């Protein structure tokens, strides 16, 4: 696994495609336990990311990720803005000076990103948030010598689906207490698309 600037941009583009395609689905998930804007928020944010990232000449992965972070922060609008923004910012800082990035560097970036999300959201696992997808994926990267694309998707997918069983204790869904059980967390779903896109990049590159 060796990711160059162009791979990272492809990752962002693939993520954007999935999010635009599933915009209404994400919003519907947010309607059940939130304020029905997660699809709109993510669609606005990633649309802008892809728009801007395409127009620039990047020499480092870190710079692509940093711009992504800043755009998500200012464009997304909801809780997911500062959370994904912080994630990509920490990721960017974690891989600074490393180009292209191999699995070790990527794992370090993911770990830092997850730490950023948890710190920003004051959240841990089991609270029915995006953390519940990021955490097992990070863990998979850490314990696996040779990351397999399909295993990435599967880890993320399973984790996303498991958020159904959890009662929300963070974010807007937490107001619904027990009634939040039985629904997939919207931020977990969008995080799944991020990792599904990543898996496709790894597969293509592998």
């Amino acid at each position, binding site marked *: 696994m060796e990711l160059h600037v162009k791979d990272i941009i492809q990752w962002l583009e693939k993520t954007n495609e999935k999010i635009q395609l599933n915009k209404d689905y994400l919003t519907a998930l947010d309607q059940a336990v939130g304020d029905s804007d997660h699809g709109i928020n993510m669609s606005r944010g990633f649309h802008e990311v892809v728009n801007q990232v395409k127009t620039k000449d990047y020499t480092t992965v870190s710079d692509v990720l940093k711009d992504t972070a800043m755009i998500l922060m200012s464009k997304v609008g*909801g809780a997911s803005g500062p959370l994904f923004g912080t994630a990509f910012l920490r990721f960017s800082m974690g891989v600074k000076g490393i180009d292209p990035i191999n699995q070790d560097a990527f794992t370090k970036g993911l770990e830092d990103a997850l730490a950023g999300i948890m710190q920003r959201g004051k959240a841990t696992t089991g609270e029915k948030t995006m953390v519940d997808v990021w955490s097992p994926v990070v863990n998979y990267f850490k314990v696996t010598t040779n990351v397999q694309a399909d295993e990435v998707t599967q880890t993320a997918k399973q984790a996303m689906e498991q958020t159904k069983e959890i009662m929300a204790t963070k974010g807007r869904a937490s107001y619904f207490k027990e009634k939040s059980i039985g629904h997939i967390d919207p931020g977990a779903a969008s995080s799944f698309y991020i990792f599904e896109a990543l898996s496709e990049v790894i597969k293509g590159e592998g």
Partner: protein
Amino acid sequence: MDRVGIVLISHSSKIAEGLKELISQVITNIPVITAGGTEENDIGTSIDKIMEAIHRADYGKGVILFYDIGSAKMNAEMAIEMAEPAEVMLSEAPLVEGAYVGAVESGMGKSLQEVYDAVEKAF
């Protein structure tokens, strides 16, 4: 305006503006800046709006931020980190009631810490 600035962060631009009016009826000698809604003025918050509000509210005596629910806090925290070197404090008091108390205290010429403490004490 040698007074602590007040920033009103709300998911709704109407709430932020109405609150500013409510405060301005009582206190006129302090900076009160709104950061309500998303960039498109939809329901939500905007880090950029908050950062700009912090700068506009800062007259050298610091700025205290009030927010309404949930994610507004995360955006406020991010804005604070990025808005250095302004001296900023984030109040956990309820938006309307807290900002009203904070504005009266600031109007009396209190320091940022004093304003913050008075608000904390009131809730």
